[in-house]
């Protein structure tokens, strides 16, 4: 497998060397600034393997050894997402945008007309052409320094992405919804680079839904950079509901400035192989950060959430909660890196990862990783792996609740606090329903889009 992976790396390197002019020609101009440097980095790093400490729970060698098509020349894919998908989260009233593979779909949605004029939501390519100063100021600032093969690969091959800019003191009263749809007739790979900027005192909620349409193998390798300025509030919900042939590689990089408030909730309902890198840098005082997520895995699904919260400044508060329910041959991985810099005094940081294995064949690996260099802090972490409580199961059965139903109630209760951390009521209600459906096994494959079908 390793030689195969090396072969594929070589193919991508050849592809870049032969076609980098086409890649650049069709790309958002800003993405070309670092492209060659990113490529050079990928040449030296290659794809991450499970030999690397940060990737020890994810073995990508098999899925990345396969040959995927890339759409370097940006040919249009025949799909009108507005025809295929109807959002049915009752009462969510979002500003709705679609990215098909890695291309922003032209905006045709009348419900988006209410978007305040000063807010910019468009493709990165359009933004890069119209607002070069703004885009250049931020693009790559969080991702360029990462020593990560996937991020480097993205830097070399990503040509476009989603762009959102919320200016000073503008507060969006409705969530922005970004639906990523993978569609192709052949095994296919998409690389996208998203850029989200909130100026001082701005407020926005982004709901990212990852979906697959066609029954082919997909790799999506997305990097999202989020800049949250002073006193700004940002909520990021990532909901994955993809099919088992999907490899979803997602890097979410968030920078928080002083007194900002961020909630990130990463929910994997159904997938194939998923790696989420979630890195939040607290670069100002008095930041509030809530990072949570949940995984429901069965069959041979694989989910690895690698999280990192860096407390670089004093007086910040972070809270982290991840829960996994795994059955069959599912594998879960969790890393909770928590770094408290030497002068980040009065840090309060709490991390919890709890996991339930429903069968003996399911596997969970969890690793709290705390590095604390300040001496006046409150930090805690807890990680547990266990089974459903037999005593509680019997108690419920003794009240007439059948075994399967009792199990379901317990699993649902287990995940309830992650769902409670959703601050959009309509989405919270919808998630309760979806999680229940998923736990009942009624969501055994991606049904197009459960959120927007």
């Amino acid at each position: 497998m390793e030689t195969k992976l090396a072969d594929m790396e070589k193919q991508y390197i050849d592809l870049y060397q032969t076609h980098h002019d086409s890649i650049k020609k069709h790309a958002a101009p800003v993405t070309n600034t670092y492209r060659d440097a990113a490529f050079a980095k990928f040449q030296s790093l290659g794809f991450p393997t499970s030999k690397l400490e940060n990737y020890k729970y994810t073995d990508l060698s098999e899925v990345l050894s396969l040959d995927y098509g890339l759409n370097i020349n940006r040919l249009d894919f025949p799909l009108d997402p507005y025809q295929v998908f109807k959002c049915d989260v009752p009462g969510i009233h979002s500003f709705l945008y679609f990215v098909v593979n890695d291309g922003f779909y032209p905006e045709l949605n009348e419900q988006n007309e209410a978007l305040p004029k000063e807010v910019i939501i468009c493709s990165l390519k359009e933004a890069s052409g119209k607002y070069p100063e703004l885009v250049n100021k931020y693009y790559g600032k969080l991702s360029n320094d990462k020593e990560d093969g996937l991020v480097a690969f993205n830097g070399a091959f990503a040509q476009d992405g989603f762009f959102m800019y919320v200016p000073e003191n503008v507060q969006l009263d409705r969530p922005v919804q970004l639906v990523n749809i993978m569609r192709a007739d052949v095994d296919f790979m998409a690389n996208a680079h998203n850029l989200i900027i909130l100026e001082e005192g701005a407020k926005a909620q982004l709901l990212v839904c990852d979906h697959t349409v066609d029954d082919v193998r997909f790799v999506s390798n997305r990097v999202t950079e989020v800049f949250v300025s002073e006193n700004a509030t940002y909520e990021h919900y990532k909901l994955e509901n993809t099919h088992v042939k999907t490899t979803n590689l997602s890097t979410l990089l968030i920078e928080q400035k002083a007194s900002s408030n961020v909630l990130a909730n990463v929910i994997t309902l159904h997938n194939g192989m998923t790696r989420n890198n979630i890195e939040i840098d607290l670069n100002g005082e008095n930041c509030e950060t809530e990072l949570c997520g949940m995984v429901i895995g069965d069959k041979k699904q694989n989910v690895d959430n690698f999280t990192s919260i860096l407390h670089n400044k004093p007086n910040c508060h972070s809270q982290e909660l991840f829960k996994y329910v795994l059955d069959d041959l599912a594998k879960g991985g969790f890393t909770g890196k928590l770094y408290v810099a030497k002068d980040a005094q009065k840090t309060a940081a709490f991390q919890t990862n709890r996991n339930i294995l429903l069968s003996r064949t399911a596997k969970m690996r969890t690793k709290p990783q705390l590095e604390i260099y300040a001496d006046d802090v409150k930090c805690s972490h807890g990680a547990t792996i266990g089974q459903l409580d037999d005593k509680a199961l019997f108690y419920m059965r003794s009240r007439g609740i059948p075994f399967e139903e009792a199990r379901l109630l317990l699993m649902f209760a287990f995940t309830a606090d992650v769902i409670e951390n959703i601050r959009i009521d309509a989405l919270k209600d919808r998630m309760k329903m979806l999680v229940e459906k998923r736990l009942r096994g009624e969501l055994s494959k991606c049904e197009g889009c459960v959120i927007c079908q």
Partner: protein
Amino acid sequence: MLTIKDLHASINGKEILKGLSLTVKPGEIHAIMGPNGSGKSTLSSVITGNPVFEVTHGSVSFEGKDLLELAPEERANEGIFLSFQYPVEIPGVSMVNFMRTAINEQRKYRELKPLSATDFLRIMREKKELIEMDNKLANRSVNEGFSGGEKKKNEIFQMAMLEPKLAILDETDSGLDIDALRIVAQGVNKLKTPENATIVITHYQRLLDYIIPDFVHVLYDGRIVKSGTKELAYELEEKGYDWIKQEVEA
């Protein structure tokens, strides 16, 4: 109603019940007393189908049905209820949701339509009043953070909701102060009808001042070694269990 014949049961290979027989008829209240470790709680666990116990011999029938063939939930839906000695906390499952699921599963088993939300809430309110249960408790997770007394009250509340034919109260008096004991006992008495039966498992005679038994049985070393009327309970309270042990071993 309930007929237990020569019941043997063990846990992890250790035999706890060693040939227990008992017959309970509708309308009767039976008290089962006995020293620690005599098998009182095992008996209630085996009747309700706790999978940690293994029945090795004997039979248990309930209204003509072979109880040992039924899953715990089926036994419950046939009308058997256990008030747990140690009620289990279930974080994240609200009392309301728990009770509604239980009631509607019972109704489904009996081929009845689910209760409407308004009917359910009305019944819940009535039953809460019956045992003077704090309103707040119903909105919390099942038993989570409840005091010992609140947990026991909650058991009787669930019993009131499910209206069992046979209720087994396993050490319901333990951990209760006098006031709570009175309320719980009154609740049990209010739920009493000529059709249903109760088995009261207790260490002490105290509870039997409030819930008057028709029969008192002494369980010792996995068997019922002595049966009598409520006077037997007074005798035990006065003399302790030693004389029973001596009688058995003699």
